[in-house]
């Protein structure tokens, strides 16, 4: 067979896989995103993460006013893996942050917001009018700061009002980030969907603590914090599988991803994109490139041309 014809035929049958993905209306060149609160306060760092293979970065959760957060210790490394953090949502406030990212044209930025009443979210979204924002992520699930986060996510009526107000404030897609609170997270998901949410991120950290046996006191200054990293992966995976089995909504998987296999597991469970944070503590920023390469190899081996081909496959049986 002539060489040209051969290469044409083989390219017809074996397509180079693409890492591009869509989460509803949100289009990304790569499926791995930086999770909120990790390295998320400088545009220069966002650029670096983007060059290293992150498809998008989620900002630290921003509030209407700057917050200093809790005193140290704010982070604890768990024996056997994972972290417990109670940074206390320290952030420069939405207005300051918007000024910093105004010049951004390159990096897909998802702005994470935290607040206690619908007006907080309306105000903050307004601050970003002159910025290129890929999506907003409503943090309805921080487990260690009073009056925001989980306390909001646990109140269905408040979730409804916040999602509705936020949707009315912008045409940019809005994601709700859920976690494990006292209300069943599926109820929060369902309320958010009914109120018009565009996608769901699951999950946030899980409320936890650590006590030092020598000095016999809790280590974190806030006593309680949120557990992240490998120990929560099986829980997060279960949540993604449950949400995708019950609802027709684009999902971003988050919790404990540190290898390409973890990422693929989340796709198979029904996630269209993935966020990671803690893995950076172990493998540093190169982790994005390494996971992307692993996913590509897997797609070649399984003959998938796009991420979409894998999403939800584990539910076939």
């Amino acid at each position: 067979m002539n060489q040209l014809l051969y290469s044409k035929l083989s390219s017809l049958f074996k397509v180079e896989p693409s890492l591009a993905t869509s989460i509803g209306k949100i289009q990304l060149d790569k499926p791995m995103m930086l999770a909120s609160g990790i390295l998320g306060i400088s545009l220069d760092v966002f650029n670096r993460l983007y060059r290293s293979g992150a498809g998008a970065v989620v900002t630290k959760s921003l509030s209407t006013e700057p917050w200093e957060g809790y005193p140290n210790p704010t982070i604890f490394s768990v024996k056997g893996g994972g972290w417990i953090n109670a940074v206390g949502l320290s952030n420069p406030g939405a207005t300051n942050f918007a000024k910093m990212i105004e010049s951004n044209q390159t990096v897909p930025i998802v702005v994470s917001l935290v607040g206690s009443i619908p007006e907080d979210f309306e105000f903050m979204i307004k601050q970003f009018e002159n910025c290129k924002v890929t999506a907003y992520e409503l943090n309805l699930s921080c487990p260690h700061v009073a009056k925001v986060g989980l306390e909001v996510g646990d109140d269905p009526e408040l979730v409804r009002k916040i999602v509705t107000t936020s949707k009315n404030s912008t045409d940019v897609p809005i994601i709700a980030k859920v976690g494990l609170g006292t209300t069943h997270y599926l109820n929060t998901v369902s309320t958010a969907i009914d109120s018009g949410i565009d996608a769901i991120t699951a999950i946030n950290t899980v409320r936890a603590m650590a006590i030092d046996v020598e000095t016999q006191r809790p280590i974190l200054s806030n006593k309680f914090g949120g557990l992240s990293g490998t120990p929560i992966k099986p829980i997060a995976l279960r949540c993604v599988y449950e949400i995708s089995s019950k609802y027709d909504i684009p999902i971003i998987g988050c919790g404990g991803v540190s290898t390409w296999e973890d990422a693929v597991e989340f796709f198979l469970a029904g996630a269209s994109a993935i966020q990671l944070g803690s893995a950076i503590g172990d493998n540093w920023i190169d982790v994005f490139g390494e996971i992307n390469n692993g996913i590509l190899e897997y797609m070649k081996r399984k003959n998938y041309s796009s991420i979409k081909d894998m999403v939800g496959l584990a539910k076939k049986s």
Partner: protein
Amino acid sequence: MQRNHNHTTIVTIEKVIDETPTVRTLVFSDDLMSNVLPGQFAMVWIPGINELPMSVMISNEPGKAAFTVRKHGPASTGLFNIKEGQQIGIRGPYGNSFDLKKGKLLLVGGGTGLVPMMRLLSFVKPTDDVTVLIGAKSKDEVFFEDFANSMLEKNPHKVLVSTDDGSYGEKGFVTDLVEKLVNESHYDGVYVCGPEIMMYKTVQSAHSRGMFVQASLERMMKCGVGICGSCCVGEDLVCRDGTVFDGEHLSSNKEFGHFYRNKAGILEKY
């Protein structure tokens, strides 16, 4: 089993040395910390009070390590007030270390920035010709002068002190002395740790003359492991990419010497 450096280890303070009215050295036993590279730091937990990044000091005896702390705000005052027999938690070591050149070396330390410089001294070769510059506000705030001299007993060396008010040594900023020295002769390596403006000027003086220079940066640190983001300078994370950076790299960083971030992460001018 090898210790996971991220896990907090509790150590007991064995000796407290008063260096100046506001500076103390706390000595403890810990193999891992006694062997750290010059420039590395630990996250130090003062139970019930706070957790702070601290450079690891030199240890004269095997298996011992120390922190030298200046009392400042609530956290460092908490550490300053720790008594012999009390316990603190440590994790680390974190960060990279100085790249020690051979030959004619200039070490510049301001305040507790002297700590990593003392650690560096324990790594110099007897053939190196070493100049140490100590910058302090006034005479009572000068420390480690005798210590530096004793560390360098076997070397051709000079230990020079400058005080802002002229109450001891040369009068003026230590950076004026740096400018004078790098103008007079070539150094194979210049190392600096101290207030950022002092580091900025030292880096400029040496780098503009083509000398190899490194600075150990300080930023607000919460995690120490590269996840919280609070320590960023431009696109670098001080706890993970540093704390030591080359003059070459620093000259292209827009924030170094000009801006720092406060506890909420807002960029403020120096």
